[in-house]
């Protein structure tokens, strides 16, 4: 079987697990979880860190020591302007054109604002960014994002931090069928079984944070998710059997000596 790599904006990765760096007990625990997750891409938020003043440098150094590719995000931004400004700051600070674009429409469930998201994507792609948009599972929104030039889509499984898994399998399945580009399930995953299911459905990768950071043992949970993602991906590549209504014995009974049956 040929090698199975994840390709995002021309870069290839062997891991399909993208991990967030917020909410850990300590930077040390975060680094240990990243190592256990065997991930190659980690996301990080700049907002409120005032990078312009060179602040938070120690924390960035710790993050950079993980050796992972950094995917800065625009978490917490509520307008196109805010998101674009933060993306520019992140590009300067981390020397990367990659940006996980978040434009939040609702303060409470952090649901993406689809209208502002499309506008910000257009603007940033025009400025040379490689945009990975955090979006809902709406088909038309995803089409507009593709038209804007996004080469990757990142629909939610459920709202950020809820841990509710894949809430709308029908919509997600539609996205998978309709788009050839990499589609990453971002947010809402609470358990490794849910991440595994996303991979079985053929999604290219999973991005999460809270499910690992808020576990009783985040390092062990990171390893568990890594395993679940591998299992799900292998299952997808192997091809799942079709579920059937009637039982079908896996061992044929024809030819079995009949006196064994009434024992």
């Amino acid at each position, binding site marked *: 079987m040929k090698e199975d790599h994840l390709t995002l904006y021309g870069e290839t990765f062997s891991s399909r697990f993208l991990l967030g760096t917020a909410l850990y*007990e300590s930077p040390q625990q975060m680094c240990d979880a990243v190592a256990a997750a065997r991930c190659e891409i980690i996301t990080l938020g700049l907002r409120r860190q005032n990078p312009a003043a060179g602040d938070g440098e120690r924390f960035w150094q710790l993050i950079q020591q993980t050796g992972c590719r950094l995917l800065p995000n625009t978490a917490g931004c509520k307008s196109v302007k805010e998101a674009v400004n933060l993306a520019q700051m992140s590009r300067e600070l981390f020397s990367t054109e990659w940006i996980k674009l978040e434009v939040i429409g609702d303060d409470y469930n952090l649901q993406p604002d689809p209208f502002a998201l499309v506008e910000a994507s257009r603007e940033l792609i025009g400025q040379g960014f490689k945009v990975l948009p955090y979006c809902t599972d709406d088909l038309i929104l995803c089409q507009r994002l593709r038209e804007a030039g996004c080469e990757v889509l990142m629909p939610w499984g459920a709202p950020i931090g809820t841990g509710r898994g894949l809430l709308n399998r029908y919509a997600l399945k539609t996205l998978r069928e309709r788009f050839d580009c990499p589609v990453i399930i971002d947010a809402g995953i609470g358990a490794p079984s849910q991440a595994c299911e996303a991979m079985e459905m053929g999604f290219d990768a999973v991005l999460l944070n809270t499910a690992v950071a808020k576990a009783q043992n985040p390092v062990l949970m990171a390893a568990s998710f890594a395993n679940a993602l591998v299992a799900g991906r292998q299952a997808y590549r192997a091809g799942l059997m079709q579920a059937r209504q009637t039982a079908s014995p896996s061992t044929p009974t024809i030819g079995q000596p009949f006196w064994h049956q009434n024992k």
Partner: protein
Amino acid sequence: MTQQNPQTQDPPYPGARIGIAGGGLLGTLMAWQLAERGYRVTIFEAGSAERNLSAAHTAAGMLAPISEAAAAEPCVYTLGLHGIERWHQWLEQLGEGAKHCIHNKGSLLVAHPQDESELDQFMLDSRTLRGQPHARIEPLDGGDIQSLEPDLNPQLRRGIFLSPEAHLDNRQILARLDARLAALDVERIYNTQVVPRAKQILDTQSQTARPFCLVIDCRGAGARHCLHNLRGVRGETLHLETTEVSLSRPVRLMHPRYQLYVVPKPGNRYVIGATQIESEDLAPITLQSSLELSSAVYTLSPAFAEARILEAGVNLRPAFASNFPQLQCEPGLLRLNGLFRHGYLLAPALVDCALAQITGESESPHKRYFIEPKQALSLSRASV
């Protein structure tokens, strides 16, 4: 001699000169304890006598071993219990009136109805602490909350009571400590940036070095340019004054993205805290943070709307990568740092450990946590 106290080589004898860099909580406590034992102590402080640079001044002074341990290492509980006990002893020593600066009334966690799952998460996070000696983690309903704190918003229907948890009138304690240092003839040099070295302290402006028998580095976030892995974590607080709300214990509001607390202070004052931002920026509080803090406190009790904002504090919590404090020893130099958000809670255990190291009096039972933090943390995880 070296056997008893290998790290500092010649153990300084009472009467010996000890230089302390940093006049915050750790520097002040170390100076006090050493001066009481007969050492001649000099403190160098980069800020003024008002400690405006010190996190000890900005902090809310909570002693919350259960809530802190739930969000960190389980050993924080053991070390925190030691902290509460030690503060009682220390305040007795500080003379008449000081013992009223600690309030042992437990603390309250509450959540608004839409965020009640945060309380379930806390019950899960504190699971390992429930079997610990003295620990009380009790779910409350709306009626229980009202009977403990009648001024809280009656819409709060669920909460958790935690004991033993306490809070300190930290600024009053710092003032009493200062008075005691003066009485003990501790020399205090303010507005002076220094570099602590083995057996000498260098004044960076005049480039003069003063020799000491032993030097103790207690500079907190001020040492982050010299200490590998030490960083500052920005925290912001509001100090309010109101006679319309009366709370007798710290209240923490659990929310998916913020954990904010209100701590009562003498004179109808309240400290609202604290944001936790991975930044070493010391610029004034942002509008966003003040909105978060003030809207949270407003939802706890709408009567806070009329409170006066007396201060908006900003400071850096000193933290190592593990967010756990360390005691680093080399000949002629001790460094105590990294108290992070556990300043008043863990300072006693760290100070006792450093004192044992200096005087050779008796081995601290907590040494393993601070001197080899990595190894100790894995031990504590296994044992709790």
